[in-house]
């Protein structure tokens, strides 16, 4: 019976407009997300000055099977990364003979809220700092260790572990720190600037066409509250700057370096666009 109705509906849609067909099938799901008994905010009113009325987590744009993986932290393969991060926490490295634990003895307490409030202003470097760079800063200044190579498994695991301590907390940036507002402005400009041979900006997909299909994929609002994210396609944790670079590559533009000024500005702005959504790290996406 249901099958017949769906068939009839799609035949109708075919005859009217193809846009209607795609729109109807790719809207965010009407569902709630609870992880380990914690209720997540996957849908919330946008902050002032935001182009959207309602913010939707990327979780709502995924298939039921993918959504189920994130609901159960046992089944979530991203938790392997979090566990690895927990182990790395107490590993001593560098000339000072210290580990993360030497300064932050109780990560469950000390790191709570950290994942919800970065990027912050780094007064020493005079630029925004994200969790990956903060880890490197600690390693260089306090531990006497080498910074991680971009996307080293350890870097992703520690970032995921730190962000996971804020699971369920709403994303909230303090843009009044230092010159963070200027970087937010720069990020916003980048967000709306078309680049590459395909001449696409972030907004063309994630603002103008979220909820529609891009070939076989649902376009989401491009929220970053679940990074590092476990992507089934790559079957590993994917960092935010890896995803940024992937998106830019897909527009056939020159790919900016990870943690470059442009991408730090973009991270600041895009994180703000998810204000109020829960930290979901490690999220599961396709």
């Amino acid at each position, binding site marked *: 019976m249901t099958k017949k109705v769906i068939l009839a509906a799609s035949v109708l849609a075919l005859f009217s407009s193809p846009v209607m067909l795609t729109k109807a099938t790719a809207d965010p799901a009407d569902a709630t997300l609870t992880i380990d008994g914690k209720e997540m905010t996957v849908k919330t009113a946008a902050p002032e000055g935001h182009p959207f009325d309602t913010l939707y987590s990327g979780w709502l744009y995924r298939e039921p099977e993918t959504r189920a993986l994130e609901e159960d932290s*046992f*089944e979530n*393969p991203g*938790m*392997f990364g979090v*566990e*690895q991060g927990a*182990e790395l926490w107490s590993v001593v490295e560098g000339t000072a003979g210290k580990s993360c634990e030497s300064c932050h003895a109780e990560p469950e307490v000390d790191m709570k809220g950290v994942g919800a409030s970065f990027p912050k202003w780094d007064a020493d470097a005079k630029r925004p700092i994200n969790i990956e760079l903060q880890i490197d800063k600690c390693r260089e200044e306090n531990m006497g260790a080498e910074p991680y190579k971009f996307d080293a498994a350890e870097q992703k695991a520690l970032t995921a572990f730190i962000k996971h301590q804020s699971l369920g907390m709403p994303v909230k940036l303090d843009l009044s720190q230092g010159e963070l507002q200027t970087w937010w402005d720069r990020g916003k400009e980048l967000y709306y600037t078309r680049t590459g041979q395909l001449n696409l900006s972030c907004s063309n997909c994630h603002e103008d066409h979220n909820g529609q299909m891009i070939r076989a994929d649902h376009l989401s609002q491009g929220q970053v509250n679940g990074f590092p994210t476990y992507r089934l396609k790559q*079957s590993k944790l994917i960092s935010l700057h890896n995803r940024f670079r992937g998106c830019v590559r897909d527009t056939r533009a020159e790919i900016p370096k990870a943690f470059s000024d442009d991408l730090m500005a973009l991270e600041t702005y895009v994180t703000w666009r998810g204000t109020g959504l829960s930290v979901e790290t490690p999220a599961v996406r396709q």
Partner: protein
Amino acid sequence: MASKPRVKLPKSASAGEIITIKTLISHEMESGQRKDKNGEVIPRQIINKFTVTFNDKTVFEADIEPAISSNPYFEFAVKVPESGTFKFTWVDDDGSVYETEEAIEVA
């Protein structure tokens, strides 16, 4: 294999109860079909066997083939007649054996 395998089952059950066991192990499951940047075939390396015993009696067994995706996940139901220990064994192509065990109390 990066981290230790994960296993989830109830700590206690009543005699004859059917319980659900979930297992997950971190593994690349390299199929042997892929090529690296230089065009060379990446040799196959998968977990080829998964066995579960309860008080040394096999209760679940699977031969795993290259089409199984990375980080293989198994969920199955099993009847528990008495208190005892489940032993979980994964066998890697390279001969490595990953093991873990979990006890259950039957009232």
